[in-house]
């Protein structure tokens, strides 16, 4: 599905300089939910920018369904951490969700249907005529998710999407995302620095080390559907969390 091979990214003119991503290799299967876990500054964002086609890698390759990614692919949607800047303040919620669809070749009617469906899916059917800044942070991020959904991607890339909302809202958004992921059968690549979040959401957690390369791949075999209370009380949840904690800690300890 999504294959990353020997990905290397160096910022600046010197290709042999200090890399932000070095020798990154992994594969994400169709309809898999993969969390990328790494401490801040380990190149998670750079990696995502290369995967999404926003940045060109210095070396290596990203392939999506057997075709190399050279620019933002139509089958991919990106949800940014900073929803307040990713949503455009001069567009109402409805238009914020709908504006990319025109460039995907949808008719006005199709775009409207896709938008309404996506807004309903995130529970914001009645908020289309509001401006994003009239909504709370959690609702704004739901609009951003709706925009990604309406785009009907195969792969959803998410860059610490819930890092700047409060814990309560965050739990709600996690469950919403899991629900959407199952309902729409999409592939999700979710970057986070939160161990609990990674274990709770993922089929598989990849632990990144700086400069971004995969240190560890951990399968999460917790039963689905997951539940904020029950899942997190399972002994397996605690074991996975400890394992990931150790993996993260081992790499940050020397620093």
């Amino acid at each position, binding site marked *: 599905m999504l294959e990353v091979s020997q990905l290397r990214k160096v910022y600046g003119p010197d290709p042999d300089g200090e890399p932000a991503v070095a020798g990154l290799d992994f594969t994400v299967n169709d309809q898999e939910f993969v969390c990328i876990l790494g401490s801040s500054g380990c190149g998670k964002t750079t990696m995502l920018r290369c995967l999404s*086609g926003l940045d060109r890698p210095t070396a290596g390759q990203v392939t999506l369904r057997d075709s190399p990614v050279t620019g933002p692919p139509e089958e991919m*949607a990106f949800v940014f951490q900073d929803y307040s800047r*990713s949503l455009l303040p*001069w567009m109402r919620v409805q238009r914020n969700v709908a504006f990319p669809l025109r460039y995907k070749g949808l008719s006005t009617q199709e775009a409207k249907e896709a938008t309404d469906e996506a807004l309903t899916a995130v529970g914001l059917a009645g908020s289309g005529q509001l401006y994003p800044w009239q*909504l709370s942070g959690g609702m704004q991020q739901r609009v951003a998710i709706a925009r990604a959904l309406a785009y009907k991607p195969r792969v959803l890339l998410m860059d610490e999407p819930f890092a700047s909302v409060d814990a309560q809202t965050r739990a709600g958004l996690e469950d919403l995302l899991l629900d959407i992921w199952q309902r729409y059968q999409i592939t999700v690549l979710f970057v986070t620095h939160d161990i609990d979040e990674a274990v709770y959401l993922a089929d598989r957690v990849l632990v990144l080390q700086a400069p971004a390369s995969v240190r560890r791949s951990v399968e999460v075999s917790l039963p689905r559907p997951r539940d904020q209370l029950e899942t997190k009380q399972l002994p397996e949840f605690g074991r996975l969390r400890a394992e990931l904690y150790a993996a993260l800690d081992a790499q940050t300890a020397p620093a």
Partner: protein
Amino acid sequence: MNWSGSSAPERATDLASPSPSTGRAAAAPRRAPRFSDLGLRIAGIVTVLAILEIASRAGVLPRAWFPPISEIYLEFGKLAFGWPLWLEIGRTLGGWALGIGIATLCAIPLGVLLGASRIAYRLAKAVIEFFRPVPSVALIPLAVLVYGTGLEMKVFLITFATFWPILLQTIYGVQDVDPVARDTARSYGLPPLARFTQITLPSAAPYIATGLRIASAIALVLAVTAELVVGAPGLGQAIVVAQSNANPTRMYALIIVAGLLGWALNSGFQAVERRLLRWHPAQRQEAGK
């Protein structure tokens, strides 16, 4: 990449500072004022007018130069009901509009180019910094030499003076597009032209609006100055004529007209901004949540 320059003295942050009586502030409970705000304002104005009136009539101010304020307003009223005043206003506004119009047509496209291209901006920066500080009135002799003493001279001066604030605000606006917004548009596959119309222009709009509002005030000053100094027809010339005809009452009445004109233009711009840029933080009537 966001490389919005460090030399940005006129960012759009001053865009019509939100009035404290709107939005949340109005909803917040506060003690009932003893006098209404409007009442206090009117009382202030009336007090100043009364002091001026008395000072003039009592001879504290020499009456030949400071006629009683009541006579000035009487004259103002008479002028307002005659067409010559409106003709002069029209002449002044004609120069104002033509000058700003030409400046806008030149400055916005150039500003977009300079804002979008780092190389073009660096090339142009020194030139802009050389021309921009030139006080426009210093060009009056040149303008008279080339264009004579009529409308063209006035338009030339106003165009020159208003070109710079509009240009710089446009550059800043285009440079200041949020990189996350830009990435969002790119990640959804918007082609370059669509990114320009959907992202760049709307984010630059508040900056450009501020540039236009600054330009409007500068243009009025220059129009009146050109009329005063050179004698181009318009309000400024009418003020000089009243003065040289030893009619200070009319002179003051015309000065009041010029002041009101400036106020009306500024209010007009603010009203348009409020309407078109209601999404901008400075214009928002409702806070988040």
